[in-house]
């Protein structure tokens, strides 16, 4: 464990900016988002949770896959892989965990997504522990915690005027190499311990037995009503750190253009609409069920992990206050019926 004072930390960010693209929480309107910074002063680290998760650094809202150009009777393709070195500073442990989940999707046994994976391999993650988790946070129910280190290279613990730095990987150590930070003394370690103890979560979600319930609940009438107030927008999915669905479109100008991928959402009817007009998920019921099933059953089947880190963003951002904690509680409380169509 090392120690860095906050002034020194800002200087350090300014140094890093010379070599890396540094992304950090920046205040925008009334919330925080991870932005590429030009100066350490832009960063605000006493934030609760960013509006849009830092997944957008590795998996942007819109990104070019390749550009094409028709010429000499053929077509020229240019890959658009972002190979820049990046650092994400100040991300929360829950968001760091989400990258481990996304890794499974984009690095499957059969296919590797070079856009995500190249960024992922070139990005160092400097986490920030949560001294004051929000009332909507439930990371501990999902095996995480306000000071969980999983997926991080460094973890900062805010002890007032200084950060205690936990070095978690060689990559993290390398990042600090020029700094010659002192080891955290007894007093700082004690302060960090107190901060961690004080960071209790007020929300727990009971996930015990949920998976086996979802295994047999697909045709249950519970889905008829549970989605009823859902508007079918993508506020939950686009602000979810583990949601990764996307669309691929072309944009052309004359004889050249680009293929672009954009975030997409299972909540939209068009998402699954066949060319024939048939839609396997025709109403809000099927789409909402898909979202819950994908996170809490299908992802578990395929990757042995729940695709939720308990960040609470979907709770905060839902325009109708459809709260995933209540949805799960309702499913847990329902009687299991035989799963027949």
């Amino acid at each position: 464990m090392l120690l860095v004072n906050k002034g020194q930390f800002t200087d350090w960010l300014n140094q890093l900016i010379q070599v890396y693209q540094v992304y950090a929480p920046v205040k925008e309107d009334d919330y925080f988002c991870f932005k590429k910074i030009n100066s350490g002063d832009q960063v605000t680290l006493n934030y609760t949770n960013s509006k849009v998760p830092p997944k957008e650094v590795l998996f942007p809202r819109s990104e070019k896959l390749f550009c094409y150009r028709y010429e000499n009777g053929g077509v020229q393709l240019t890959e658009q892989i972002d190979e820049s070195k990046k650092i994400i500073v100040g991300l929360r442990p829950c968001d760091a965990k989400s990258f481990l989940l996304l890794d499974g999707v984009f690095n499957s046994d059969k296919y590797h997504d070079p856009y995500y994976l190249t960024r992922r391999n070139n990005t160092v993650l400097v986490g920030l522990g949560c001294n004051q988790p929000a009332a909507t946070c439930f990371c501990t129910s999902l095996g995480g915690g306000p000071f969980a280190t999983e997926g991080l290279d460094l973890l900062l613990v805010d002890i007032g005027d200084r950060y205690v730095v936990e070095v978690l990987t060689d990559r993290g150590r390398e990042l600090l190499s020029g700094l010659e930070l002192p080891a955290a003394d007894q007093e700082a370690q004690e302060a960090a311990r107190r901060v961690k103890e004080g960071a209790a979560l007020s929300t727990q979600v009971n996930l015990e037995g949920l998976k086996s319930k979802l295994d047999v609940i697909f045709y249950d009438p519970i889905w008829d009503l549970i989605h009823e107030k859902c508007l079918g927008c993508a506020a939950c999915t686009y602000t979810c750190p583990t949601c990764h669905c996307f669309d691929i479109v072309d944009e052309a100008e004359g004889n050249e253009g680009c293929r672009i991928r954009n975030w997409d959402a299972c909540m939209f009817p068009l998402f699954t609409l066949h060319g024939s007009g048939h839609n396997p998920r025709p109403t809000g019921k099927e789409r909402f069920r898909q979202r819950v099933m994908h996170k809490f059953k299908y992802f578990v089947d395929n990757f042995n992990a729940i695709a939720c880190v308990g960040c609470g963003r979907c709770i905060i951002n839902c325009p109708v206050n459809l709260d995933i904690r209540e949805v799960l509680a309702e499913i847990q409380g329902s009687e299991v019926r035989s799963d027949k169509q």
Partner: protein
Amino acid sequence: MKNPYLPLPMRLVKNFVETEDKLIHTFTLEFLNEEDEKLFQYLPGQFAEVSVFGVGEAPFGIASSPTEPGHLKFSVAKVGVVTTTLHQLPEGTVLGVRGPLGNNYPIEEFKGKNLVVIGGGFAFTTLRSLITYILHPDHRGDYGELTVIYGARNPGLLLYKDELAEWEKRPDINLVCTIDRPVEGWNGRVGFVPTVTKEVAPSAENAYAVICGPPVMIKFTMPVLEELGFAPEQIIMSLENRMKCGIGMCGRCNVGNKYVCKDGPIFTRAQLNQLPNEY
């Protein structure tokens, strides 16, 4: 790292109006680079994403067979923006193709077995690939009897009419074509695929049934196959959910925990029985 999103350039060498209603065209594409063709090793049942640069890409089952080297064939219905553009393209246009994607018909398991291939409408594309593969002199001996039941609303809507005529003449394939209603000049069968399947009554013993067609055809043919003794494990189907990436990442084609693009599109009836009905 191999980039699974980058299409291989191919030239459209033939844009053929396949059906009388002109809604289905068959496209023949040739690889621009020889080495790409060597990389593109596919088997019947697999699909590919075809790109019209600037418009987009769409997934189509590969209608040609690996026994027909030098080109790929796709039969495409005009339904959306990519397919409509494709239909209008002049021969010679350079397109992109990504693939092969998905799994293939279990041709290894089929060996030594009788095959009943049932198709309806324009969902005959990968079935053509399968039949062509099996009929190839190198493979025909590996398989038992081959029965093909293929139906369309009217004769003009049957795909691959020249080939059907050739198959008619062959002794090693029992081809039964049927149309929904009698038409002058049609000497073949008349009736819906489920009824005709019942009449033809292929034996389920030591056999697999491969079925592809519109949902209503599948729905009514299933009980017929069951009656004939085909167990769910003996019935092979190909699904067609909306797809984008084709590699199990974009999230839209899943049926339960399986992705049609990566884990399918070929499933046995038994496998589908374990999955929700979202297809």
